[in-house]
């Protein structure tokens, strides 16, 4: 069986130009730099990494909101890169996105009804009573009372707005949803409501989900597999429990040890790996393994060789040459 979604050596670079009259390309930001990944139907893949590592660029490239520089995205065996923009618009009913900030992603001048009706029109031309019914059904699905459909986004709280955004993503009956930090802007007590809702909907509708977050505990809870990104590249991929409980790559180890645990007893006992410095600029990534300047295990060889993502254990991939030794 071929994969539902497949990324092959995907690259998205943003050129930087200098000069007003003679414009020259002086460098490029390699936001996504050679990512290969496949996702099965119905799978939930968590994508973690620090800000600026290219998570959102990857999401936007898969969504075809950004055109990739190189490589391809295949959805159900069809390459999306070859399609014209009109064809992409037509096929976008199959893949939808939920954004981070529900304050910015909903049009403040459109009522919930307008927003959802627009999304529904992509699939079928509904009008009058059936349309109202369908919208009511969608709102119930995400836990909003249908009688509020004539309200505007500002009349809702953050959590409720995120529910509207989820309903909008579900309206065209997509097969793939990419959720870009959908709970980061919400409070803890609201966050768990939205996570439960997303999980329930995924199971009911057999959705494939790519869940992007910087919060590892959220990603561990929700996803089947986790992919860890650093400076445009994947450094580790594996099942969620494995990656969090027995991380292989030194970066994943540091990332997980930096997450505070809400338990003072365990918190005092554990050893922290505190990384030095900030993530380097993606304009000029370090030579060799891009993590080597911050890596506590780096040796000379790491500065020369770019490590490939290889299967180190069964179904566990990591990009580090020293995994066997550390």
């Amino acid at each position: 069986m071929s994969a539902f979604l497949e990324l092959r050596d995907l690259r998205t670079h943003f050129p930087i130009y200098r000069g007003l009259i003679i414009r020259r390309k002086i460098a490029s930001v390699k936001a996504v730099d050679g990512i290969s990944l496949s996702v099965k139907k119905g799978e939930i893949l968590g994508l973690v990494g620090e800000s600026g590592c290219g998570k959102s660029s990857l999401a936007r490239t898969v969504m075809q909101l950004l055109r990739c520089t190189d490589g391809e995205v295949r959805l159900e065996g069809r390459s999306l890169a070859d399609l014209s923009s009109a064809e992409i618009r037509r096929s976008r009913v199959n893949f939808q996105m939920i954004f981070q900030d529900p304050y910015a992603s909903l049009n403040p001048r459109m009522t919930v009804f307008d927003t959802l009706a627009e999304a529904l029109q992509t699939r079928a031309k509904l009008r009058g009573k059936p349309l109202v019914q369908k919208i009511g059904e969608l709102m119930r699905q995400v836990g909003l009372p249908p009688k509020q459909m004539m309200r505007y986004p500002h009349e809702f709280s953050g959590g409720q707005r995120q529910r509207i955004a989820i309903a909008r993503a579900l309206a065209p009956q997509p097969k793939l949803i990419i959720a870009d930090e959908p709970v980061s802007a919400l409070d803890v007590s609201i966050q768990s409501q939205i996570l439960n809702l997303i999980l329930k909907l995924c199971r009911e509708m057999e959705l494939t989900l790519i869940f992007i977050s910087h919060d590892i505990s959220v990603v561990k809870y929700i996803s089947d597999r986790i992919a860890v990104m650093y400076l445009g590249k994947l450094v580790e991929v594996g099942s969620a429990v494995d990656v969090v409980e027995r991380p292989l790559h030194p970066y994943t180890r540091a990332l997980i040890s930096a997450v505070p645990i809400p338990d003072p007893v365990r918190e005092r006992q554990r050893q922290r790996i505190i990384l030095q410095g900030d993530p380097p600029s993606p304009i000029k990534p370090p030579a060799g393994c891009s993590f080597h300047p911050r890596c506590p295990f780096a040796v000379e060889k790491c500065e020369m060789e770019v490590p490939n993502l290889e299967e180190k254990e069964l179904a566990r991939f990591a990009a580090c040459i020293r995994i066997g030794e550390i």
Partner: protein
Amino acid sequence: MPLLEVENLRTYFHTRGGIIRAVDGVSFSLQEGETVGIVGESGSGKSVTCYSMLGLVPQPPGRIESGTARFDGIDLLHCSGEQLRQIRGKRISMIFQDPMTSLNPYLRVSEQIMEPLLVHEKISHRQALLKAIVALEEVGIQDAARRIQLYPHQFSGGMRQRVMIAMALISRPEILIADEPTTALDVTVQAQILELIRQSQQHLGMAVIFITHDLGVVASFCQSVNVMYAGRIVESAPTEELFAMPLHPYNASLQQSIPALHRKGDPLYTIPGAPPDLSHEIKGCPFIQRCAFAKELCQTSEIDLDEPVPGHTTSCQRVLRGELGDLRLKAQAV
């Protein structure tokens, strides 16, 4: 005697939409060298509490309706502007959440770090600059002598927060108020900044008020914690006890809803509904609508903090009457 003692603080905002009771009767105290956490969701009044103490609440629309905040014999809420200026930035300083918006983009970092010294101490510009360079080195910025002449946009997020910390610590304050200092940062950088605050605290022996919404950060950082909800403190306890033996249903269910403590596949425990609208006066317990244990008495009786266990206070009337057993187990069962 505590270093700082806040009693019955009420800060209301008089807006066109009505009176917003942002802080409604908050009392807590801070001992010398202690780290106290204030946890709560957005809008629970944790920042406004601290802004009120330092006179940073814009008035109008804000108004401090009642309360005292005693620091070294001075009531911060009622002293003159001149007295407060002597304290703010010198004896009590503050780090803000977003280092991008709290640094002045037009001024070099050097001028911003030197400012507290030039304002509060008799010191020459030259000496102030030397001290500022040392302060910048202390927060772990290499090549400080050159970097101090740069502008804030030339620093990364973590570095900017280090600059903020250097600014706050340069006058050797007795109290540092840290308002979500790591919320805008990545976890790896967050770990660096927390470590830095911890080290400087030991070094200077100052007390820290740490405002956050992250229970994980509280667990690793604070000695005692005040949990705020809808403008009030609903529970306060030493950190270990707050986690091991929650005495307020809000705290108990908040802990239950953290994904980190859940087994995969179990549905996440959720607190239904949303926090109450603060523009209406709240009768009885503010958590009543979302509480699994609410009874009629929660609506009718006077809600006061009390201390069922020494050092551990709660405002839950049912817990105080001994009607609820171990909230942790109960919250799981609901």
